[in-house]
């Protein structure tokens, strides 16, 4: 071996009782280790002292530490200078396999060889640095969300460019008469906060406001976005990250003619009604007003979701009516009154007014009757069928996120942010709500989910923090979420590229652009380091310094395949390092029994598995290949959005490979496993071993 590798084996936690360490050391020496040291407790004070002193003054390429899971005692053996690789002898060998058994020993020896191969095939990553780095932030939209984002960024010491297409900042929030109560005692309508924020804006030197301006193009990558503005201001600015706060549009009421909109003059939307109040046209509000909640919302035909704010808005508008006309009667027809949190107190206050009558029910007709409007309501709390005569009907309309195409991203995958269901541009809205699929571009406010003003303000602050964080990470040459801190990045060996466009199409984050010929142009700072492009490339063009086709091929070759007559099958399992790998560790912690015939290779994402790895493994004599990834589909759990979906899609291609190799389709199997489903692991492997046993050993064995 030309690359010098030092090896440490820990015999603690019963590893030494389960595995013959001297034989393991012999394996290390046979594979040309620079040295191989054993310690009874490598993580003890004495152990780490030993570790670091052994490494002193040694010229090494890297270190292999055969001990517990890399998830345990993390950081303890990290070395500034050296590649370090952990071989998981504890959770994934000695805790799950029969102590002292030859098969357990073989597993341990294979894993050690695999670890050595992994280090030998890797190089220390060199951080990516672009030609230019900007720490400035672009905020798109100067509504309550954009304004807040700009102010917060400025307060944290960052220069902001705030772009607004209208002729003044403020957005929809500045058109409100008042705000739903958001602070103690929660029973009085609040003054809109927006005007104070607009005032504050004038005092900040580091916020550049561009009104009557839109975005012509955005090019580049985090740390170095080139933004061309068009309109009252024409020019180009460079920013490091972007907050998209383009807000919402009220649902188009022309689709609500069944509720009288456009048909009857006395029917208007909650947005139009708000304008009456905000512009003090109280005289236009008649004595009997009926509100229809969820006029468009919670309705598969219109908006399937709840817009979260319409109930509060109606209660607010009803309060205004009653304040200005003590003899007015107000009716509210609802499905459910949704006043979450302390807004409940506002609801209670409104309930105290007898002239505001609320009932659950479904509106079945809005009909003219002379000068008045008859509203038919079914299944109400009052009666099965009632008709309420009123003078005005207000339709509580929900929010539709603004389309992000206007960002005009010059990305091969499109000008806007990729969207999930209902056009909200996010990717993991529960745990990581700000992660869009465009690195360095964060969505905030009603573009991301329906929300009220205080919520928009919190959202703006969060999104701008992510923007700041991205700028700082890119400056250090590090990846952002979820492989935060990763210094590796994809490098392309263009001589072999056939312009097949798979990488440019399949990258979940749109990292690759294309020239006219279709040749990929990488933008490493957009990359999240999932390696899905490695999985997509048929020509083995793409590699990371510490994650590549060749490295993995060497890892696979490191496994010793027993010959056919030993009747010991070998299964190779590519497992997602984010969820399946920890699940295997859990199985170990629970001391479940796992077959010693399986060899696990953690991968960055199941979507990063290249076909070559599979065909190599099969031609080396592995009897079956398992790919264990995260759940795909609408409720996907893949941290890289569609890694597991791609694995499914590529399955067909793999079957063709099997056909050409004259192998059975069962030789490759894909399983989706949640991180908590560790209890299923022994069964998954045993079932697969049975399947393999039925079709017999791989004929390539020993060839």
């Amino acid at each position: 071996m030309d690359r010098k590798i030092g090896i440490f084996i820990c015999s603690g936690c019963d590893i030494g009782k389960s595995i013959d360490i001297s034989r393991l050391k012999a394996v290390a020496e046979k594979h040309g280790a620079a040295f191989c040291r054993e310690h009874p407790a490598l993580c003890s004070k004495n152990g780490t002292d030993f570790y670091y002193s052994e490494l002193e003054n040694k010229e090494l390429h890297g270190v292999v530490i055969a001990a517990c899971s890399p998830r345990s005692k993390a950081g303890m053996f990290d070395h500034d200078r050296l590649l370090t690789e952990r071989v998981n002898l504890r959770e994934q060998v000695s805790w799950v396999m029969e102590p002292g058994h030859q098969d357990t020993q073989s597993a341990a020896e294979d894993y050690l060889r695999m670890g050595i191969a992994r280090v030998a095939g890797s190089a220390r990553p060199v951080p990516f640095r672009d030609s230019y780095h900007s720490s400035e932030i672009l905020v798109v939209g100067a509504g309550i969300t954009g304004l807040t984002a700009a102010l917060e960024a400025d307060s944290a010491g960052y220069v902001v460019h705030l772009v607004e297409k209208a002729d003044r900042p403020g957005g929809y929030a500045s058109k409100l008469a008042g705000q739903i109560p958001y602070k103690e005692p929660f029973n009085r309508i609040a003054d809109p906060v927006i005007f104070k924020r607009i005032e504050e804006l004038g005092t900040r030197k580091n916020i550049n406001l561009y009104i009557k301006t839109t975005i012509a193009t955005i090019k580049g990558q985090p740390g170095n976005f080139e933004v061309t503005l068009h309109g009252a201001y024409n020019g180009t600015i460079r920013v490091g990250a972007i907050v998209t706060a383009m807000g919402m549009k009220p649902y188009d009421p022309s689709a609500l003619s069944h509720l009288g909109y456009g048909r009857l003059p006395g029917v208007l939307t909650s947005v139009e009604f708000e304008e009456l109040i905000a512009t003090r046209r109280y005289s236009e509000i008649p004595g009997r007003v009926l509100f229809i909640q969820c006029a468009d919302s919670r309705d598969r035909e219109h908006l399937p979701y709840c817009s979260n704010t319409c109930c509060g808005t109606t209660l607010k508008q009803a309060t205004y009516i009653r304040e200005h006309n003590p003899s007015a009667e107000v009716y509210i027809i609802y499905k459910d009154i949704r006043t979450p949190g302390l807004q409940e107190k506002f609801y209670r206050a409104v309930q105290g007014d007898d002239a505001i009558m609320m009932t659950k029910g479904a509106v079945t007709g809005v009909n003219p009757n002379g000068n008045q409007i008859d509203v038919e309501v079914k299944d109400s709390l009052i009666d099965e069928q009632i008709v309420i005569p009123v003078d005005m009907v207000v339709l509580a309309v929900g929010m539709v996120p603004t389309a992000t195409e206007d960002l005009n991203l010059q990305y091969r995958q499109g000008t806007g942010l990729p969207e999930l269901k209902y056009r909200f541009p996010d990717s993991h809205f529960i745990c990581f709500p700000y992660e869009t699929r465009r690195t360095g571009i964060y969505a905030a406010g009603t573009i991301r989910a329906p929300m009220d003003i205080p919520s928009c303000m919190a959202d703006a602050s969060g999104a701008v923090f992510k923007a700041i964080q991205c700028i700082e990470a890119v400056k250090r040459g590090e990846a952002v979420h979820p492989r935060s801190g990763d210094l590796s990045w994809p490098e392309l060996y263009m001589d072999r590229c056939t312009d097949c466009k798979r990488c440019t199409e399949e990258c979940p984050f749109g990292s690759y652009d294309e020239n006219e010929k279709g040749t990929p142009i990488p933008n490493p700072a957009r990359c999240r380091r999932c390696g899905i492009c490695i999985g997509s490339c048929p020509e083995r063009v793409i590699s990371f310094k510490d994650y590549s086709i060749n490295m993995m091929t060497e890892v696979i070759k490191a496994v010793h395949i027993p010959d056919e007559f030993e009747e010991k099958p070998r299964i190779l399992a590519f497992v997602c390092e984010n969820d399946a790998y920890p699940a295997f560790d859990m199985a170990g912690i629970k001391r479940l029994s796992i077959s010693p015939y399986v060899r696990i290779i953690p991968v960055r994402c199941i979507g990063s598995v290249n076909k070559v790895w599979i065909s190599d493994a099969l031609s080396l004599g592995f009897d079956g290949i398992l790919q264990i990834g995260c759940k795909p589909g609408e409720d996907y759990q893949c941290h890289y959005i569609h890694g597991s979906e791609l694995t499914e899609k590529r399955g067909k291609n793999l079957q063709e490979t099997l056909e050409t190799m004259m192998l059975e389709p069962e030789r490759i199997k894909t399983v989706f496993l949640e991180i908590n489903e560790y209890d299923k692991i022994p069964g998954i492997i045993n079932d697969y071993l049975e399947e393999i046993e039925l079709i017999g050993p791989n004929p390539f064995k020993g060839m």
Partner: protein
Amino acid sequence: MAGITAAVELAEAGREVVLVEKEACLGGNVVRMNSYFPKFCPPNCGLEINYRRIRSSRRIRILTQSTVEHIEGVSGDFSVKIKTAPAYINDLCTACGKCAEVCPVERPNAFNYGFGKTKAAYLPHEMTFPFTYVIDGTVCLKEQCGKCVEVCDYNAIDLNAEEETTVLNVERIIIATGWKTFDAKKIKNLCYAAPNVVTNVELERLLAVGGPGEGTLKRPSDHEIPRTIAFVQCAGSRDENYLPYCSAVCCSASLKHALTISERCTDAQISIYYIDLRVSGRNEDLLVKAENNKNIRFIKGKIGRISESDDNHDLEVEAEDILSGRKIKERYDMVVLATGMVPNNPLEGIILTDSEGFLVENQLEGIVTAATCRKPMDVSESVKDATSAAVKSIKTNF
């Protein structure tokens, strides 16, 4: 979740963070949950990513089993006094598990809300982070026993360890102390004392793979699989006698529970008693799924009374169906109380609160409150609020 989020987000922006946690492991309430709404995904999935981010950032110091005793100073120069429970097991622990094997003392499994038992030396749960065993000093026999000390090969156990006090100097403080579930014992008519009446948080553990039923829901009294289950929404919430507010998450949580149970046990009959069904935004999909499920029934009405049958711990639920005006009296194998959120206040008297005990957003300059200690919200909102607190904590001007 909020504290972890604020810490990792700040660390990745280049800041040094100390994360103070009163429990032995991180993850608060969410790490005990079986799944999240609306995706039915396991919380450990996102937590694991965050644990990895903590490991790789190297800018976060974690103090578990620690509480803040006192804060003094001003923004930019706070002095924080922290009390840490005795570290009977220190960070030399490899989590090999020998101590628990020999430990003769058992205690209720606190992680599983008292369902099942652990030894006095125990691993909080299988995904626990930091990954180390702990000893419950309140039940450990200490020097009278010492068996764990004998078997520990790593000098990780010191039964004479003492409580420690640390004083930290920090520039900013984020309070993300979260919530506890409303004490259902206080609700007079809902019979929480009965073994088969459980709260929504207890149900999370009853459903979890790491819970007492190992993934199979069994009712506590006889470990039988319940076939009829009632959910009582607003158990103590929206009620002037208990919690006057709405906790914003209980409706979605119950829909998630009902759908999970229905999927695992296809003949289970589930009734949901509610006042209003409050599910926010796209969580509406859950409601649609539940409404289309023929084994899930909705009854608009508040519960009058729940009583336990004399023979087999079944439950009798009395309610009024508001839509039909009829009185209902039905028998169930199990009842789940959708109890609300009560904020945790780490420093009573020092931290400003509103009339319901929630920590107000604007504290002393340089102190930011985040997530459910501030107002009721779901996980996604908490993450967002914590990230927002992060930017507030790096402000250079106020």
